[in-house]
């Protein structure tokens, strides 16, 4: 089940909210949330739901064993066993076919059978969440959870189950027993859900129709226009798809009283690869930083070791995204770029006008998505050649056939959707209403800002005048009406569309 489906929007969500809020006891709410989460998962994975239940039980037991062991050696042993079990399950279901294909190809004989296993939805996400839990228990950063139902609720929680953000146990440890649900929090969550739904359905799906029609084709067939617009469409699709889904997840969490971490912070406004990865899929970057990169020694090591650590982390980031060489290459591509920036490029970029950095980064993520999206490594070179005009303007097709032209008027909307004009306007309005119109505001700071900003203007100081307070109120009402329109348009699109892909299911 995906959030952008009729069954979720018009049946699962209203039913869940009705049951969840009808019950006054938090303990029962937690069990209801677990039950609905398992039902949500079983809807799409009726068999693999047992795998998830197994994962919950195993991690609950391992964490208890780690917690109860007095000796460091036994704590470490249980941690290793827990990590091995989690990674073995992930490796088996996600990489068995990839491994078999490559081993057999290298040996020239069928040494390993390809078991043709279907990838359990969300396994990459819930496995990482489980790992954060047992590692944090080992590090004594969180209390062990003695109630298996509560741990199950954390691992299986449906808002972030299939596509993140990767919520660490420490993020919600306190909220499992102590969260407060307020009408304002619920409204904020609902607003964020509408924003995410609009991004996913109205923008990502629309860009996806163009991307899906062009990406599987030969570069020679579609030429410069086809290749360029195909990758451009994919660039927008993956951002709106994933960030939209994250917004919906965070919004649903807020409706229930959970504060999930922010996952996207306007990544396409970045000025370097390093900054891009501080803004893109922040919860994944944070996981690899805290659970892989720093344990490897981070940057407090010799330069060769630092380079190795960086490449290991980015190789893992790539392969995490999918079992194919494209993804490995894509991860290493970012690793190399980040190293280049660390040693050379940043020094140059800092001396140049800001827009050069934006162009540099746009080129990087554009070609990055090319590696990511085009099927088969052998085709990547052809596509790059096509973008430099090797196959003419439109290849063997006509401009009309490519249909890229029919999306042109959406380009400004897509660009606007990728820019932080809304938080900038909100902050400006707040400053003006508080009588400090000249206050300098930063729409999307590069660092920090882990909480998702509200969709409405909230005054932290008394308004400078009654009139200004009223204008803020009118602006907030206007935002709510606009979001209601987005919800209606998105629902119409969901009802209409049999085309509702979700890119991150492959992860």
């Amino acid at each position, binding site marked *: 089940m995906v959030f952008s489906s009729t069954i979720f929007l*018009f049946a699962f969500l209203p039913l869940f909210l009705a049951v969840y809020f009808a019950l006054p006891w938090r303990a029962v709410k937690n069990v209801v949330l677990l039950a609905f989460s398992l039902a949500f998962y079983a809807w799409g994975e009726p068999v693999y739901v047992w795998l998830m239940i197994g994962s919950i039980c195993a991690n609950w037991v391992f964490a208890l064993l780690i917690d109860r062991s007095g000796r460091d050696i036994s704590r470490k042993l249980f941690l290793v066993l827990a990590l091995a079990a989690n990674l073995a399950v992930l490796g088996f279901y996600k990489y068995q076919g990839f491994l078999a294909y490559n081993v057999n190809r290298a040996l020239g004989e069928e040494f390993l059978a390809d078991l043709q296993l279907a990838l359990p939805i969300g396994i990459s996400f819930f496995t990482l969440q489980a790992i954060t839990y047992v590692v944090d228990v080992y590090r004594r950063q969180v209390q062990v959870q003695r109630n298996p139902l509560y741990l199950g609720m954390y691992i299986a929680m449906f808002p972030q189950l299939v596509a993140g953000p990767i919520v660490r146990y420490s993020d919600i440890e306190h909220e499992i027993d102590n969260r407060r649900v307020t009408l304002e929090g619920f409204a904020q969550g609902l607003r964020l859900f509408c924003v995410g739904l609009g991004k996913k359905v109205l923008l990502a799906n629309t860009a996806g129709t163009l991307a899906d029609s062009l990406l599987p084709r030969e570069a020679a067939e579609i030429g410069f226009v086809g290749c360029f617009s195909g990758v451009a469409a994919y660039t927008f699709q993956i951002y709106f798809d994933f960030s939209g889904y994250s917004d919906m997840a965070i919004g649903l969490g807020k409706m229930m009283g959970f504060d999930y971490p922010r996952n996207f912070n306007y990544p396409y406004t970045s000025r370097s690869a390093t900054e891009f990865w501080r803004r893109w899929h922040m919860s994944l970057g944070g996981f690899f930083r805290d659970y892989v990169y720093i344990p490897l020694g981070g940057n407090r090591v010799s330069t060769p070791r630092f380079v190795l650590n960086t490449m290991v982390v980015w190789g893992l980031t790539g392969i995490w995204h999918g079992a194919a060489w494209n993804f490995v290459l894509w991860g290493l591509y970012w690793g190399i770029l980040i190293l280049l920036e660390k040693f050379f490029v940043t020094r140059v970029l800092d001396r140049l006008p800001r827009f050069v950095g934006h162009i540099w980064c746009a080129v990087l993520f554009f070609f990055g998505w090319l590696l990511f999206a085009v099927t088969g490594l052998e085709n990547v070179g052809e596509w790059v050649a096509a973008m430099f005009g090797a196959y003419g303007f439109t290849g063997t097709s006509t401009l009309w056939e490519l249909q890229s032209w029919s999306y042109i008027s959406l380009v400004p909307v897509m660009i606007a959707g990728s820019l932080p004009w809304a938080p900038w306007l909100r902050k400006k309005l707040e400053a003006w209403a508080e009588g400090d119109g000249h206050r300098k505001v930063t729409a999307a700071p590069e660092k920090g800002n882990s909480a998702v900003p509200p969709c409405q203007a909230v005054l932290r100081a008394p308004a400078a005048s009654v009139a200004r307070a009223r204008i803020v109120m009118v602006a907030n009402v206007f935002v709510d009406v606009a979001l209601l329109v987005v919800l209606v348009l998105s629902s119409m699109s969901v009802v209409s569309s049999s085309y509702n892909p979700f890119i991150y299911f492959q992860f």
Partner: protein
Amino acid sequence: MACLFLCGPAILFGALKAGIAVPVELTAEPAKYLIGGVSQSAILPNLNIDGFANKKLQAAIEDSVGNYVPSKANALLTNAALQRAIITFSDLPQSFRCYPTYFDSSVIYDPTCNALAQKPLQDTKEVQNGIREFAVGFADLVQKFPDRKFVIIVADISNTSLSNPALCLSDDTYTTVMLNAMLKKVCAGFENVSVIDCSYDNPRDYYQYFYRTDHHWNGWGALDAYERSIDSLESNYAERLRGALNDTVSLKGLEWLSEHGYSCRDGLMLINEPVNEPEFSLSEITLEEGSPPLMLLDDGVARMKEAGPIASYDFYQTWYGQWQDTVAVNDGAALPGSSALVVCDSFGTAFKWIASTGFGRVETLYDLHGNRTEATPLAETLLGSDCEIVFLVACAADYQKVLDRFPGYLD
């Protein structure tokens, strides 16, 4: 407000189950005339562990929820209209002659003619091979039956017609003219075969014979194809058939009805098209099986009115009959003992009634229709039939695919 909106289907479901009279526009009922509007949902047969494990239960429940979306038809049409507005706006710099009715739609809209058409058929190897195999198989077949006359008609459906506005905007397309040329080449020298060219190269001619909102020809298109067929026959034969036809054609007043057609349903764009159909005095006709279509009934026009929206959305089939039936038509007024076989796809639905004016018996086989799942080899059918003439009537894609579906059909 947003929560209430999300509860819409539940409220509608509750209201309908409670017997509350809900205006039909607020239900999903009108959406059943649109492609993908309403799905058949089978919850009860799948309400078991197996149904859940193989996800059929989930699919049935999802269909069922979709069927209770309030004002679903309006949602579908409005969403498509919004996408069309974006496409139209995007088209301003280029001003192409036509554009898709929504993103990724297979239906295109031609504003100058206010008509809908399908995207042109691509001239792929698959199409070429399919057509070649059919043409060669057909040439072999006709040689086995030198005493029978074969008339092959390629219906000029919009995706292969030269009048398609997207044709000049596309490369490597396959056209009716190309198929006609291939058939003529392969069948050259066979006196018992006529390849009838009824293609139109401009929209003005085309829309006299084809609907603006449906992929089929109208009655005039079927009549035009039949008249051209007659002209290709020996003079005495042609004279007889033409004489039988001349007496019968007149106009019937169906002008009150506007048609939306299959292309509207598929393209989610409603265009009103005044009905313009010929009337054939076919009072002598009887069917050996099945029920007569409305066009044969004295009160057919009245029944069209009673049929409700489907008469407008699916005029061609409602008026001329369903293609699924294998029907034999007997015309007592025509020459007794003469008979014809019509092997066709849905284009034969209108054609067979016109052909029946000249023959005592017309048998129709819809073997060429894409949805047909089984067929007897044509040679076997011909051995058991005493027909004088075999009409093959279909669009290019159905000729191309018939041997894929029934590999031994022309053996």
